């Protein structure tokens, strides 16, 4: 096992800021981007539906 304890793991041998600063931003973006893409898709579907309503 590489780590002795949870705090040892989070400290990353003194490089915690750099390792978690990298992983945190990457993970945040990769969770956000699919939501943004799905919302754009939903908005596009709504726009088509609205267009149909207007034309009766």
């Amino acid at each position, binding site marked *: *096992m*590489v*780590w002795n304890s949870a705090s040892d*793991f989070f400290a*990353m*041998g*003194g*490089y915690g*800021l*750099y*390792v978690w*600063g*990298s*992983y945190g*931003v*990457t993970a945040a*973006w*990769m969770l956000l*981007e*699919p939501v943004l*893409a*799905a919302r*754009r*898709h939903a*908005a*596009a*579907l709504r*726009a*088509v*539906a609205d*267009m*149909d309503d207007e034309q009766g």
Partner: protein
Amino acid sequence: MKKLPRLFTFAAPKSFYRLASITVPWLYGIAAAFAIWGLYVGFFVAPVDATQGNSYRIIFIHVPAAWMSMVLYMAMAGWAAFGWAANARLASMMARAIAPTGAAFTFLALWTGAFWGKPTWGAWWVWDARLTSELILLFLYLGFMALVEAIDDVRRADHAGALLAIVGAVNVPIIYFSVRWWNTLHQGSSISMTAAPKMAHTMLLSMLLMTVAFWAYAFAVVFMRARAVVLERESGADWVRALVAKK
């Protein structure tokens, strides 16, 4: 006579839209599974690096993100060029769908690189050939996105974007070979096609697993965005009307 499936069936926006809706959940699943496996190997199996300590663990996302930034650019430029040359609408839509994800991976490569450079070199940023050419890649993505959005006539916008993407493609080999052509602060390639890898097997395994995860993620999110682009641009088509009417 029975109708045979045609080679270019999926080149039609309607067929692509259906195919993408089936594949996207699977791609997200593959991405999640490989990310969990890759992170497990990267953080709990791979040993501490002798010279860089634990800061080296940034490599497991830094290198895959940098690879994706280049691969997605070539894919974007390729689809944009094909869409222009063959007058294929779906290809141009794919180029537009790829751009934001490519820009994001470029940003992440630069971001994770800065967070690795600080403890390793003592600087968040240096103007060396590798970093500078990667920054230019980010500007090329942003320029492509701004250009295609700025022109109202969609097909003219596609063509203008294709021209920018093709000219900018010359930057990709410059990024790739920069560490060999110039004396850069950035270290040389971790993996080369001509020599054995210079890193421990578990480190290499984690990096490759994360690369698979990033590929699957990129396909999933690009397909999702491409579905939105197809609807936005084909909103007048009968099949789109029928699709909405069914709901």
